[in-house]
């Protein structure tokens, strides 16, 4: 019983020797599946001075819900917007597009 309890969950264990290529090398440091933070979206926010809210308004990042960037100092994209505005003027006037419109959702 104790031995059973000390055993790791079977689904987290490495593959056993019965598997011909049992050379699992799990990457513990790897955030792995689901670890994505959408950092590309964040970086894409950096082009805001050129393309307005085109990408930020896509609804694909938390930033999409942010209005005035100065009110969201913890948001990378907002910080970037503030930074950009402080060091340069946009080459092209931002084109304001609507943000994602969220709908009332019913469960069938």
């Amino acid at each position, binding site marked *: 019983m104790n031995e059973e309890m000390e055993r790791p969950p079977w689904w987290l264990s490495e593959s056993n020797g019965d598997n*011909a290529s049992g050379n699992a090398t799990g990457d513990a440091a790897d955030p792995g599946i689901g670890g994505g933070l959408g950092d590309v979206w964040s970086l894409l926010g950096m082009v805001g001075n050129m393309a307005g809210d085109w990408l930020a308004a896509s609804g694909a990042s938390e930033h999409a819900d942010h209005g005035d960037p100065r009110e969201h100092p913890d948001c990378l994209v907002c910080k970037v917007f503030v930074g950009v505005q402080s060091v340069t003027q946009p080459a092209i006037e931002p084109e304001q597009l609507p943000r994602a419109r969220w709908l009332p*959702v019913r469960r069938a």
Partner: protein
Amino acid sequence: MLLVSSLTPSGRSWVLDSAARTVGHERVVDLGSFADPNDDVFDDITSAVSITGAQFTSADLIAGLRSFRDVAALVRVWELHGTDEPRAVVWCSGSVPQVLADLEVLGELADVAGTSLPSATLRARLTPVLAAVRSGDIEWLFATPAQPDAVQQASLDVAAAVGIGATVRGVLVAPMPRQKDGWPKEIRVQAREIYGRAVMDLHPITTLRTRSGEAPAFPAASMDAAQASTIVDAGGDRIFTLTLPGLSAMEYGPVNGGDIQQVHVGTWSADPAYPTTHVVVRFAEHTVRWEVDATLRRCRAIDAVVADDTIAVTFVPVQEQWPSGREPEEGGA
């Protein structure tokens, strides 16, 4: 090219065995080994991004972002092995849906960046990879253990992948607890039940499990698993439906132990001339943007219904979008 990944380390060798049986060889390319910040794909990315005038967007910052490393690695691997016969097997230690989503976004960045030389160069490198993802020349084979939370997360990952147009070769449920390894009957029965549920939830995606210590091949060709259509109801409203296999896993409870269990549905416009260009679906940590047809571009969504793995969004015409003042005829644009 076959991208191979596993939700947990325990599935790695099993899914690689399945991949080997599927393509007919055992050679494996590690995507991580191509994530070199000195790679010329990185140069193209940094050049394209730096034209925005954001001086602080240094190459170091970009290189430090895992998304760019993985996307650059995928581009490089595709350029080197994309046309290999038999198909190359590429091991991905991270999230394949995330890499593919980032690839898509980077492609959009290249488009947004305009006609500059750097953006054109980047676009030229990304376009073939994006086309391969959408055509099925790049497929994904994925492993998850037969454990409830894992299968739920795997199902949602699959829903995200098909939502961006990727083709999923199959899902391998592995490892399965075996009697010869001393696992009690109760656990073995539960694992088989979970596998059965995964088969149902992920239909029509091929979902197989290990049997007697053998990993199966996935011989069936990929298909377009995500299905979208638009119908006109009796009241003249347009009902857009999108089916994402795996999405029904949201009904099993909070994901990753969190307290959010909800599918968010909305619309978004990438073109100021139209009220709607995309339906946006956000679930767990994924976002799917699905481009709507020409008629729906000139309509406005009013509500959404989620049923199992299908989302239905009701659209009504926006009068100003129809010059004649008449609503569109059925099937017209």
